[in-house]
């Protein structure tokens, strides 16, 4: 036997052995450790639903859902990992199979002026249309629906579960709801019929058409305005700024309750001058009453060599926003900070004393400051 033949036979023997031999339990556990458990891939599955907002082109199907504008060839998948082209039809493959299902305080989104003290039934499917270096939920956002462990939960069951858990709203959150638009939209329609509010927690990276349709069924949104610099958006998030700004304007124009989150990351988004420009833009576009949350960054995912944001930087950002004319500015992820509370924009007095997710004292009467009677913007009662 020549060396080459010998090696070939050895290789073939090992492969046959690996393929056919039933492994003992302990070995199987070890093999899982080495090879992973494997992911199913059977094309369409029962959680596939024809996608909205598409147009056929010669090169494939052009998805009009988000500014990525993927043209997906037959058999291909969009950047969001959530849309597949099967024989010329685009499907969302995350319809009714969320990977994360939890109950959260509404303040965790964060929404401070929307039904405070209530809980939101929160769902997410896998996939996202951005790739943030600091993604908190990268295990959800940076994979496709077939790679996650999912729960079978069709829209009606989501609404039932929300009622059962005594939640005032359903939040489409954690990952990016734009990627499971069809599922979220159908669920929101059913929820509305049962008097349940809908909350959109998103990066705001969505096209105008789908957004305007969505505004018909969404009650509140918290949008991450990740920075006010297109270059930072590109490097940190793999996105662009303009579509997010458009989303803010449309939500406001369509009277969906809106709050904005700005994560202050040292060395990336902590430039006070940039924050000032951002706030100037918000004020100039009539968004000065929109609550703005500056939240503390914690090292996560790939951005793990940056220290947590110093509290002083958050306070500097807060001061810059207030000076620019923003009326409701909060500091988040810093437990016990006085800027967790809600202060009346007119008289400056504390009207909602908060400790975490708890309202400790209230000085508001029917959405008005108890001291100066100024109307405080927000959705304060479920009715």
């Amino acid at each position, binding site marked *: 036997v020549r*060396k*080459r033949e010998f*090696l070939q036979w050895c*290789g073939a023997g090992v492969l046959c052995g690996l393929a056919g031999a039933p492994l003992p*339990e*302990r070995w199987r*556990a*070890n093999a*899982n*450790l*080495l*090879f*992973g*458990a494997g992911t199913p891939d059977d094309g369409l599955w029962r959680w596939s639903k024809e996608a909205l907002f598409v147009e056929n082109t010669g090169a494939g199907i052009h998805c009009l859902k988000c500014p990525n504008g993927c043209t997906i060839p037959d058999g291909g998948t969009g950047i969001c990992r959530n849309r597949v082209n099967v024989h010329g039809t685009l499907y969302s493959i995350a319809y009714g199979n969320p*990977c*994360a299902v*939890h*109950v*959260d*305080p509404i303040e965790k989104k964060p929404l401070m002026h929307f039904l405070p003290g209530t809980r939101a039934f929160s769902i*997410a499917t896998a996939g996202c249309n951005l790739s943030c*270096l600091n993604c*908190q*939920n*990268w*295990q*959800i956002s*940076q*994979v496709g629906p077939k*790679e*996650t*462990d999912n729960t079978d939960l069709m829209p009606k069951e989501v609404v039932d579960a929300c009622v059962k858990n005594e939640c005032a709203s359903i939040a489409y959150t*954690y990952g990016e709801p734009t990627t499971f638009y069809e599922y979220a939209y159908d669920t929101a329609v059913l929820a509305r019929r049962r008097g349940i509010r809908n909350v959109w927690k998103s990066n705001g990276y969505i096209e105008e058409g789908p957004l305007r349709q969505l505004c018909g069924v969404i009650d509140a949104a918290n949008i991450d305005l990740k920075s006010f610099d297109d270059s930072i958006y590109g*490097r*940190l998030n793999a996105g662009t700024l303009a579509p997010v700004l458009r989303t803010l304007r449309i939500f406001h124009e369509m009277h969906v309750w809106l709050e904005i989150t700005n994560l202050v990351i*040292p*060395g*990336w988004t902590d430039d006070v001058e940039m924050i000032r420009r951002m706030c100037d833009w918000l004020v100039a576009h009539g968004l000065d009453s929109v609550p703005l949350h500056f939240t503390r960054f914690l*090292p996560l*995912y*790939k*951005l*793990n*060599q*940056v*220290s*947590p*944001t*110093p*509290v*002083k*930087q958050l306070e500097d950002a807060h001061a810059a926003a207030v000076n620019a004319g923003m009326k409701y500015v909060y500091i988040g*992820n*810093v*437990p*016990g900070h006085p800027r967790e509370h809600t202060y009346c924009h007119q008289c400056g007095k504390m009207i909602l004393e908060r*400790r*975490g*997710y*708890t309202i400790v004292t209230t000085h508001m009467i029917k959405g008005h400051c108890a001291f100066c009677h100024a109307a405080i913007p927000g959705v304060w009662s479920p009715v």
Partner: protein
Amino acid sequence: MGPAGKSWKVAALLMGGVATGTQVVLLREALSAFLGNELVISTVLFSWLTLTGTGAWTARYWSRRIPMRDIPLIVLGVVMFLPPVTLHVLRLFPLVCAPPGSLLDVRIFIGGSILILAPFCLLTGAFFPLLVRAAAEADDVRAAASVYAWEALGSLMGGALFGVLLFDILPSQDVLLLLSGIAGLCGLALALYTKRWRPGSLLGAGMIILAAVVYATGGERGALSLRYPGHTILEHTETPYGVLDVTRFGGQTSVFLNNVPLFVTDDVAGVEEEVHFAVVQRPVSPRVLIVGGNPSSLSREVLKYDGSDVVCLEENSWLRSAEMKYLPVAPDARVHLVQADPRAYMRTTDQRYHIVILVAPDPATIQTNRLFTAEALACMHRVLVPGGVLSVSLPSSEEYAGADARQLRAILLNTLKLSFAHVVLLPAGRDLFLASDGEVRTDIASAVHDAGIPTGYVNGDYVQDDLLQQRAQRMSTLLAVPTPVNTDGHPVLMLAQIRYWLRFFALDAMLPVAVCAGLVAFVLLRCDRIAIGLMTAGSTGMILELIVIMIVQVAFGNVYKMIGGLVAICMAGMSAGAIAGRRMRITPRRYAALQGGGALAVLIAAHMLVRMGETPVTGAVILAGCLVSGSFAAGTVFAFCARMRSGAQDPRVAGLYACDLLGAAFATLIVGPYLLPVFGVSSLAGATAVMVLIGTGISLTSPVWLRQRGYLEAEPM
């Protein structure tokens, strides 16, 4: 032969010394620059050995074009110039190629590390056949074995001098500059002695340029200011545990180890979760042992419990000094600071605690994994009073845990269950595992309230018990799967952590194994049976070294300082083996006995893992004996093969040298991160013995051996 004719020995000696010293230094730098885990360390070492082997292999084709008399000077010139330059580039590379503060993509890391190491490694590899030629022309009849022996001797000195003696005194950059200076001066002396004025002046000019470049770029300070823009650097120290930096920025003091923030001031939520989730379980006069973490903030929280007493244990003395300087613990008789290896402390202490809180880095290396093994957790169980509580944590998967994250947690959960009757996982800012033989409460906020502890975060306002319990219940269901248990000899948690880390880059963990398998197949098909035998010896030597390092790590804790010593021991054996092999009579039986001896050394070393706990000193001596005898066998086998290949003076033995290194490289890449965790140290040792049996068997069917003694006795070897 005059003194000038022996200059190849100086060059070989210095090449070995500088290569080993540089390897030890650059490995630490790679750990720091690329946030090293076991796979990163293995990849760097794999690249190093493969490139060196490739250098030797390719040099066969061009080495004859170099004038013989210039060879030693060229070697010394390169050895002088490249190490500090490589270090500089290695430090700047992640800063340039990765977005600020972020992990370098593993693909860029692998490509980059190969590119950065290539000049130095390819050239040092190529010098082997060059020096063999120089030695052969200086009338050494067994040139290859001689160069191998001198190089190994240089490695011994390099490992001992730079890995052990100078390590505490000088930072990496200065170590490499010192090496450069020595090589440069030797080169100058040689040039003057042999009256080679032109290369001599080039060397002198090179030394001046190098010094000027290092001075002008500000050395490591330049890289630091890029790494921490806007921060005031309070401290920058190279420690055996990695590079320690303390900075001040925006009124916040941050402590970084290998560029990753360990802890900062004002981390109310993180500190309170770490302390109160555990201590509130036994709130009456608790005696608490905290392993790692920031003692000033953690102890402050513990002292909120009446009658409490806290011991803060830290093994990194450099970190402890920095803590004391920049984040001092408020003077209090109830707080005790201890500096010791946690496992050694818990094995020997008579103290018993109500609570043990382990604040440790993720188990991504054997070094960090040793605190998460069944043996370590049993030690922690030992120091607890009956019903005491152990708290261990992993990064958060509060909203969702993917398959790899679940596997990681399931392994830790199942390992904890070996020592504790009750284990719960509470997903919060981190995933906290609370283990006890007694009851464990999951209504943390209520427990804190009941104990009357004033807190800023761990209370009903931020931590809602029903929601926490819902998440805990869901996680508990997901984790109820059979997994292997993480032990010292079977570090499965480490592999799970590596798999989880590779998910950041959407890479499959099997990719390095596939690359390695492809290369092995290629090399096996290209080389002859003698070379296959030598590859087996190279792999066995490296497996032995890795097993010994692993056992020493498990037994004694951090081994960075010891690695230089272990390499020195290994090189001593290899050098002695190569020298002995130059003259020893070659017989198949002796060859097989040497190969078998290497395998036996691996088997004995693997067996010592369980013995180290009982008799550490005797165990260390036996391990050193294994290392010496195993490397002696490898050195002798190399000398045998070199003599058998094609005559003593043929520089084409470089091909054999390359096979020896490639065998070691393959073992490096797949043993530490893969085979050891999957099969365990005992099975690995057994598999090594089988590999040696097969490799030796194949080798002995070579025509050289089949011609038997007539051939061997007819030719001088």
